[in-house]
């Protein structure tokens, strides 16, 4: 019975594997070509060649490392500040009753309806008028402001769902507001903080248009903008191996993040889609 059922599955496996292969082949091609010299690339296009050319990675890394540093700084600073601010705000909205709470929360919720394309031009002019064009703040401040919206939205419902008994007993023991925030709420929020953090990093790391608009020279460019530039550089040299090595290096940080936070990463991707 069981083996019969399993055998009945083979057409599904064929379709799923074929679709998977077509999806994956460009990435396989990226990795194998990243180890080829120009000569090897010209003579064997489809398959891996030997000896491998690990020095491609050195050339690519020399081009890409400043962008990587910039991405780390911008995404890192942003995610820490977003988590901090959103925790404060979400805790306040979820656990305290104060005049104007509903209206203020609606004011945040409504921002989920405002698309980036509407605010692009005035936000750019604002950054220009603040004199922040060509500085990291041009990225971090808007990322922080926009990133906290969805984070507050998610965290508020999570914190509101925590059992009231926890807080009641803490208050009987004479706990301060700060204590209830830092010692009770935050430890329970760890899983949701990881998800929101991953989601935020994905968003800022992959953003292209905003850094392109606000950073006129490439000194502070993030990897996502930098990739396009070094593609042009290596394309001009027809150095395909180095170009693909650069792509592998540019992908590595997110892949490492994925390995360490798989579950949070997937729910981050899905909520990222729902946000957009």
């Amino acid at each position, binding site marked *: 019975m069981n083996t019969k059922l399993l055998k009945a599955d083979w057409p599904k496996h064929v379709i799923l594997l074929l*679709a998977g292969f*077509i999806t994956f082949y460009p990435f396989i091609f990226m990795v194998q070509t990243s180890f080829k010299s120009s000569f090897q690339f010209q003579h064997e*296009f489809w398959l891996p060649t030997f000896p491998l050319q690990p020095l491609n990675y050195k050339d690519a890394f020399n081009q890409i490392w400043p962008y990587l540093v910039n991405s780390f700084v911008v995404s890192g600073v942003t995610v820490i500040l977003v988590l901090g601010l959103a925790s404060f705000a979400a805790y*306040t909205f979820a656990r*305290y*009753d104060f005049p104007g709470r509903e209206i203020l929360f609606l004011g945040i919720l409504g921002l989920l309806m*405002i698309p980036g394309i509407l605010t692009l031009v005035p936000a750019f002019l604002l950054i220009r008028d603040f004199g922040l064009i060509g500085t990291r703040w041009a990225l971090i401040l808007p990322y922080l*402001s926009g990133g906290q919206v969805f984070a507050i939205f998610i965290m508020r419902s999570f914190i509101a769902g925590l059992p009231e008994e926890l807080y009641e007993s803490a208050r009987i023991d004479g706990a301060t507001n700060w204590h209830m925030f830092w010692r009770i709420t935050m430890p329970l929020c760890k899983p949701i903080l990881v998800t929101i953090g991953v989601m935020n990093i994905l968003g800022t790391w992959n953003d292209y248009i905003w850094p392109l608009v606000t950073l006129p020279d490439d000194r502070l460019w993030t990897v996502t903008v930098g990739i396009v530039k070094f*593609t042009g550089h290596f394309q001009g040299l027809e150095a395909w191996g180095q170009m693909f090595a650069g*792509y592998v290096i540019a992908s590595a940080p997110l892949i490492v993040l994925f390995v360490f936070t798989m579950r949070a990463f997937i729910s981050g991707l899905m909520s990222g889609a729902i946000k957009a």
Partner: protein
Amino acid sequence: MHTLDRDVGQVSAMDVSTKPRSRFMLTVGRMRRRSFCYLFLLPTFVLLAMFNYWPALSALYHSFFQWNGANFKEWYGLQNFLQIFRDSVMRTAFKNMFIISGFGLVISITFPLAAAALIFHLQDLKFAYFYRVMYVVPMVVPGMVTLMIWRFIYNPQVGLLNALLEAIGLPTRIWLGDFQYALYALIFIGFPWVAGTSMLIYLAGLQGIEPSLLDAAAIDGASGLKRFWYLELPLVASQIKLIVILTLIGAIQGFQGPLVMTGGGPGTTTMVPGLWLYKNAMNYNKMGYACAIGTFLFIVTMGLTFINLRFVQSSAEFEGA
């Protein structure tokens, strides 16, 4: 909603009977006692006011102006909005937007749904897990790297696609530089479109179906396509509607693909509304017109979201019945 201050809740229940004047004083008193709440929220709202509320309002406001973003600003009435419909580039952009939306819709409710259904129907859960992970991994690669790989795939001299076509004896093309094919080359990016959030959302929807329903269907002898068509498809209707609205929003507002891959060219054959907004603002300094395009796209999106919300509600009622 949990609230910490039960006593305050009682006060507000009582103050219905008190005079308006003292109600106001009570509110002020509560605000004072809760002042730390406002302090906690202050940084959040300062940032939102500067970087979210202000730009949004500014965009709506400046839609009615001729504006270069600096020293020239003149009331322009509805001229910017009329210009949207007169502008021939904008017409091309809208035409492309419709084509991209149409293909996007068909693609997003076929390929990923089929993949999710196939994975869901596998008998062996280990394989189901394997495929799920396999289809997630490509999403981990940064979007720009994927775009750049596709740019290489379409490369006329050394690209994968032309090499493949040559190998099987078909004519090659300059895909992204081709007046006829460039737009379709952009739409084709990501083929076979199975690895993405849509697939995960569909799969989650299928896995959320009450198992007793599936068992009942199995007992009744419904299997394979029949079961999918009559049982599972209606039950993932809300997931389909979510994907539909996300796809439409992406098609209406997105322009990163055309910007990076073709810059809207050759000519204006791959121009989309978002890219035309971007060019008007960044290249031609027509900030007022760009704001008007943004406002227009915002209104279109709002309208579609509203229609979709009503649909989702009706389907939920249908499911409940």
